[in-house]
C-alpha cells in the first residue's frame, strides 16, 4: 500500500465512475423523466405523475409511428431472415463456382455502396417503381440493405453444422422437407434467432431510409418521428419525448429477452467432428 498505489487506485475508480456515469445517466433519465411533472434534460428525482404518458398518447402521430415501426420491422425482419436462411443454406451446401468471390463482393458492395452513397439511386429507383411513400417498399429496401451481412453471418453458421447430420437423416429415409424441418432448422435455430434479433434491431433504429422514402407523416416510423417532436416554438417537446423514447426502446428489449429465453443464443455444439 504505497502512496503511488493508492493514487493509482483512486485514479482508476474515478475513471470507472466517469465512464459508468456516461452510460448510466441516459438510462436513468429514460427511467425518471417520463414520470416527472417538469421533465428537463438534466437528471433529478421526479415529481411523480402520469400526465406525460397521457400527453404522449394524445399526440396525433406518436402511436401511429410506433405501429408503423413495428410494421416496417416485422416485414423487413421476415424478408431478411427467410431469404438469408435459404441463401445461406444453399451457399453453404451447393458447390457454385466463384461462390466465395460472390459472397465477398456482396459484402463489400453492401457495406461500401448501400450507405449514404446509394441514397440518390435508391430514391430514383423507388420513385420510378412508384414505391415512394410505401411502407412495404421501404421495408424491402431496408431488408435489401441488411441481407448481404445476414447471409454472410448465417452462412458461416450453417458451415459449422456437420453435413453428416443431413446425410444421416437422408439414409433413414427423410425427405428434403423432413431433413430441413427435423434437422437443419432446429440445429441452426440459434443462428436464425441471432439474425432475427439483429435485423429487427437494425430496422428499428433505421432513420435515413424511412426519412427519405416516406413523405407522409402518418406513415413514418418512430425513429423518424422522434426528430419532429417539437413544440410550436421549435424547442424539444419534453412532455412527449421522454415517454416516447421509453416506448421506443421497449420492443427491442422485449424481443431480446423473449428470443434469448425461447431459443437461446447458444449452439448445441457438434459432436466430435
Amino acid at each position, binding site marked *: 500500500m504505497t502512496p503511488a498505489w493508492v493514487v493509482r487506485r483512486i485514479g482508476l475508480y474515478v475513471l470507472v465512475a466517469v465512464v459508468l456515469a456516461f452510460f448510466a445517466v441516459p438510462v436513468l433519465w429514460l427511467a425518471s423523466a417520463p414520470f416527472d411533472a417538469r421533465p428537463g434534460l438534466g437528471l433529478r428525482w421526479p415529481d411523480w405523475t402520469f400526465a406525460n404518458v397521457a400527453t404522449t398518447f394524445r399526440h396525433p402521430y406518436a402511436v401511429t409511428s410506433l405501429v408503423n415501426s413495428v410494421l416496417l420491422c416485422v416485414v423487413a425482419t421476415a424478408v431478411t431472415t427467410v431469404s438469408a436462411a435459404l441463401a445461406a443454406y444453399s451457399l453453404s451446401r451447393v*458447390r457454385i463456382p466463384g461462390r466465395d468471390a460472390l459472397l465477398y463482393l456482396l459484402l463489400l458492395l453492401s457495406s461500401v455502396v448501400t450507405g449514404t452513397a446509394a441514397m440518390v439511386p435508391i430514391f430514383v429507383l423507388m420513385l420510378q417503381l412508384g414505391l415512394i411513400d410505401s411502407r412495404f417498399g421501404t421495408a424491402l429496401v431496408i431488408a435489401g440493405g441488411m441481407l448481404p451481412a445476414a447471409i454472410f453471418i448465417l452462412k458461416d453458421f450453417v458451415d459449422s453444422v*456437420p453435413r*453428416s*447430420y443431413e*446425410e*444421416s*437423416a*437422408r*439414409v*433413414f*429415409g*427423410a*425427405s428434403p422437407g*423432413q431433413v430441413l424441418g*427435423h*434437422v437443419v432448422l*432446429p*440445429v441452426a*435455430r440459434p443462428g436464425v434467432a441471432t439474425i432475427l434479433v439483429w435485423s429487427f434491431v437494425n430496422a428499428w433504429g433505421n432513420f435515413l431510409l424511412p426519412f427519405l422514402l416516406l413523405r407522409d407523416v402518418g406513415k413514418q416510423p418512430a425513429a423518424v418521428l422522434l426528430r419532429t417532436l417539437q413544440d410550436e416554438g421549435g424547442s424539444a417537446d419534453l412532455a412527449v419525448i421522454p415517454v416516447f423514447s421509453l416506448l421506443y426502446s421497449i420492443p427491442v428489449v422485449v424481443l431480446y429477452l423473449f428470443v434469448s429465453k425461447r431459443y437461446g443464443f447458444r449452439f*448445441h*455444439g*457438434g*459432436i*466430435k*467432428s
Partner: protein
Amino acid sequence: MAGVEIGGLSTVYPNGVRAVDGLDLGVVDGELFALLGPSGCGKTTLLRTIAGLEQATDGKVLIGGRDVTREQPGSRGVAMVFQDYALFPHMTVAENIAYPLRVRRAPKARQREVAERTAAGLSLSGLLDRRPGQLSGGQQQRTALARAVAVEADVLLLDEPLSNLDARLRLEARTFLKRLQRELALTTVFVTHDQAEALALADRIAVMESGRIRQLGTPREVFQRPADTFVANFIGSTPMNLLDGVVRGDGVECVGALLPLPADLADGTPVVVGVRPEYLTVAAEGIAGRVSIVENLGVTSLVTLECAGGTLVGLTVPEQEEPAVGDALHACPAPGRLLCYGEDGLLLGAV
C-alpha cells in the same frame, strides 16, 4: 437380410478424381465385411456409394438382388453409422434412436417402445432422456449403433466405427460390435484404416488401394498370404520384411543366405522375399546379422538385425530371450511362411 453385389462400380468426383475405379465385390448375407485401406484409397467413397450418398458414375449396386444404383439413400434398405456418429444434438437419445421411425410417421408410443427395446440391448437404458452432448464417446457410439439397428435394415454400413474412441474403449467396443453383429446376423460392411481392427472384426476383408481391390479374403488369408507387396506391407502390426533376392538354382539368394524357393523360376530371376518378423526365429543358420535395435512389444520383442549390405531385417523373439545389442545371430523363416513376390509385386508362391 440381404447380401450386397457390386459390379463394375466407378465413382468419379466432379473434380475428376476416380475414387472408386471399376470395382467388383460381393458381400454375403449375414457377413461382417471390412473395407480396409490407407486414407484416400476410396473405401469411404465406396461405402457412401453403397449408401447412395454418392452417385455411381458407372456400374451397379445390388442389395438383396434388387438394383438400387439409382435409388435414393432412404429407399435402399441400408442403415449407416457415420464416423462422427451424426447424432442430432437437439434430440434426446430416445428421439435419436427412434428417428428412423419418426421419418416413417410411426405413432409416438411405438417410437418410444422401439427406442426402449433397442437401448436395452445396447446398455443405454438409463440414458434415454439425455442429449448426445451429455454422453461419453462410447455411449455416443452405441447410440449411433442403436439408431442404425432400430429399424430392420437389410445392410448396416459403418464408417470408421471405432476411430473416435480411445485405445482401451476401442477394444471393448470391438468385442461389443462383433457380438452385436453375430446376434443380429445383419449383413455389415465397415470401413477402417486400421488393419488390426479389420483382422479382429471381419469375416472377410477387402484391401483397397487407389479405388481398386488389391486382395479379398479372410483375415487369415490376408495375413498369411498377402497377394502382393502392397498388402504385405499394409497388413500386420510389425511391418513385413521385404528383401530383394535372386534365384540361384533351387533356392533364393537373399541378404547372404540361401532360402528355399517356392516356385519354379529361372536362374538369375530377381524376386522379393517377404517374411513377417513373427515368422522368423533365431536359428543356427539362415539370414546372418548383428542386433542393432531391440524394441519391447510386451510378450515379445522386436529385434532389428543389420545384415550384409546394411539391409535391416526384423524378427520377434519371446520375452526372456532378447539378445543384447551387438550380438550376431541367424534368423530362419518358419516353414510355409516364406513368401516370394515377382518384380511386379505379385505373389508367386509360399514355402
